């Protein structure tokens, strides 16, 4: 049952603190798309064969398309001279708010698919819920993104089933990826101070309400894929607060190289 949308009070953004919280909340959302897009982009020309290579780089471009809209909105909110490119390329590691899951390396095709699937299930639920946001821009972005998010989930879910229920080797490799990446899933549902403020204001959906559904869905598909569901006592976190894994610096080095070496260069 969809709740009627509560419009945001126009005065809401006149408060510097509210605006600050909104910007930080948006960075948390957008940086996920940026870092996953960058990771998938690394695979361009390196996919196992032509078809998944193109599919993964398509998804990468979808992610970058999505992130641009969010960064443009952030730049607009900031109201200074910063552009989407500054936000993407000129921050320091601690200023990126993506979850740890998405910066994990492309160890093999199994890891790529599992990382994608763990995120896609979340992302589809998130964009669905974001369509009820009190913020008009975010509603529009969510509406635009949901279709491609549904396709991403179809793609990664399909491959997960194939790899899990495939050969002995594909099964053992994808099981290893599931075991390794499982500890990063809980962070998707953690909130920062900025997130809590935006949930309170009706701008952000309260994703903790979807946590159980998320794990039900993921476990259901892992079961279909004949994979074991890991049991862990402790989940990793930190990315949303800017505390990243050892992989993040390498991603940024490559991603920011052009803007750092040739400041303000344009296509």
């Amino acid at each position: 049952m969809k709740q009627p949308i509560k419009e945001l009070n126009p005065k809401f953004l006149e408060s510097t603190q509210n605006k600050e919280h909104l910007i930080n909340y948006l960075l948390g959302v957008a940086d996920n798309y940026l870092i996953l897009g960058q990771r998938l982009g690394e695979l361009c020309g390196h996919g196992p064969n032509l078809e998944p290579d193109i599919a993964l780089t398509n998804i990468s471009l979808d992610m970058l398309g999505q992130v641009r809209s969010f960064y443009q909105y952030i730049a607009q909110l900031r109201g200074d001279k910063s552009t989407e490119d500054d936000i993407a390329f000129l921050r320091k590691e601690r200023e990126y708010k993506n979850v740890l899951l998405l910066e994990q390396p492309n160890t093999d095709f199994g890891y790529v698919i599992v990382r994608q699937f763990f995120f896609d299930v979340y992302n589809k639920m998130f964009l669905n819920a974001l369509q009820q946001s009190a913020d008009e821009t975010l509603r529009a972005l969510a509406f635009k993104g949901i279709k491609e998010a549904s396709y991403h989930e179809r793609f990664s879910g399909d491959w997960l089933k194939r790899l899990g229920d495939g050969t002995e080797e594909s099964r053992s490799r994808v099981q290893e990826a599931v075991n390794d990446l499982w500890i990063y899933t809980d962070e998707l549902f953690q909130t920062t101070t900025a997130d809590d403020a935006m949930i309170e204001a009706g701008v952000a959906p309260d994703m903790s309400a979807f946590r159980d559904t998320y794990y039900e869905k993921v476990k259901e598909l892992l079961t279909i894929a004949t994979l074991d569901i890991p049991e862990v006592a402790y989940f990793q976190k930190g990315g949303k607060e800017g505390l990243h894994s050892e992989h993040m610096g390498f991603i940024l080095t490559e991603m920011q190289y052009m803007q750092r070496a040739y400041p303000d260069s344009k296509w």
Partner: protein
Amino acid sequence: MSQETPLWEVFIRSKNGLEHRHCGSLHAEDAEMAMNNARDVYTRRNEGVSIWVVESTNITASSPESSGELFEPATDKVYRHPTFYELPDELKHM
């Protein structure tokens, strides 16, 4: 995917009202994967509204060796083309 991965032919309808046209081929294990691959490889620049995929082995093709008997007899029968009619000037686009 290995060498044995089956080959599929892809047909795309570019817009409603037009016929599906052959646009290429790809590898896939089954129809579902062929459909996803076709979507990713052949429609990412907004080329289509409908996709058909068919496993290449299901297509019976004419053999190049028999092209003589199949096609050459038609080459010197110009009278089979309706080109001997005087068309009125008002008639365009023929």
